[in-house]
């Protein structure tokens, strides 16, 4: 097998402008207390708290939720990775208190346990389904057998049987091709 040679060449990183990435710029917060305060404020917003409590109730552990919050803030350039590790404890403790207040059994998460929060989870918790504004495409509709009568003749782009013929008359078609009976008047 031929080896793949598609890796970056040494120094290639210097050829691209990376200043547009927030994590390549100095972070907004580098102080422990400030970072905790920022995340606590972020969590305390009514919309966020509802989502986080729903996630905890759905069985997501504190490690997953804190990792998600940290990832978002690191990618937005709010604080660096090392600060995110330092503040993980206080943020989780705050979430634990909120969980206890709402009678939710909060788990830290076992070692090696992988439970990622995906967009589908969040949509499910928010009650957003496929029929909200988007056309419903059910599995049944996709797997339903197609009878031979419905198979269009003439290939993929062929007209389905039963569709009224909309082909133009022969005279119009010849006119479209440039074969007109009417000769242009000579000037």
């Amino acid at each position, binding site marked *: 097998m031929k080896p793949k040679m598609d890796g970056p060449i040494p120094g290639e990183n210097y050829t691209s402008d990376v200043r547009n990435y927030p994590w390549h710029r100095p972070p907004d917060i580098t102080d*422990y*207390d400030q970072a*905790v*305060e920022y995340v606590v404020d972020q969590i305390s917003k009514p919309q966020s708290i509802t989502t986080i409590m729903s996630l905890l109730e759905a069985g997501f552990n*504190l*490690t*997953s939720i*804190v*990792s998600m919050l*940290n990832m978002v803030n690191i990618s937005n350039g709010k604080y660096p*990775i090392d600060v*995110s*590790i*330092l*503040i*993980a*404890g*206080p943020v*989780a*403790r*705050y979430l*634990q*208190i909120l969980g*206890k*207040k709402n009678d939710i059994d909060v788990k*830290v*998460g076992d*070692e*090696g346990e*992988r439970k990622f929060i995906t967009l589908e989870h969040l949509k499910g918790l928010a009650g957003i389904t496929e029929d909200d504004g988007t056309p419903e495409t059910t599995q049944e509709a996709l797997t339903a057998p197609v009878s031979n009568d419905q198979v269009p003749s003439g290939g993929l782009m062929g007209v389905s049987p039963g569709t009224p013929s909309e082909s133009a008359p022969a005279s119009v078609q010849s006119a479209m091709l440039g074969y007109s009976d009417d000769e242009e008047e000579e000037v």
Partner: protein
Amino acid sequence: MKYRDVIRRSIVSFMDGTIPEETAKRKDAGLMYTPEYFDQLEEDMIGTEADKKSKKTKEGKDEA
């Protein structure tokens, strides 16, 4: 070690009342969000006595 595992360890040690050595040094300088702060917050918010485990604060991982 994956990021998630580091976060988990950080959470577990904070819940046990341990904070990193260098962070603990800042306690005298007015570090606010310590395990004791959250125990107090829990007491204020829920009205129950905070977890006794986290009151046994160990300053620095090496000292434990």
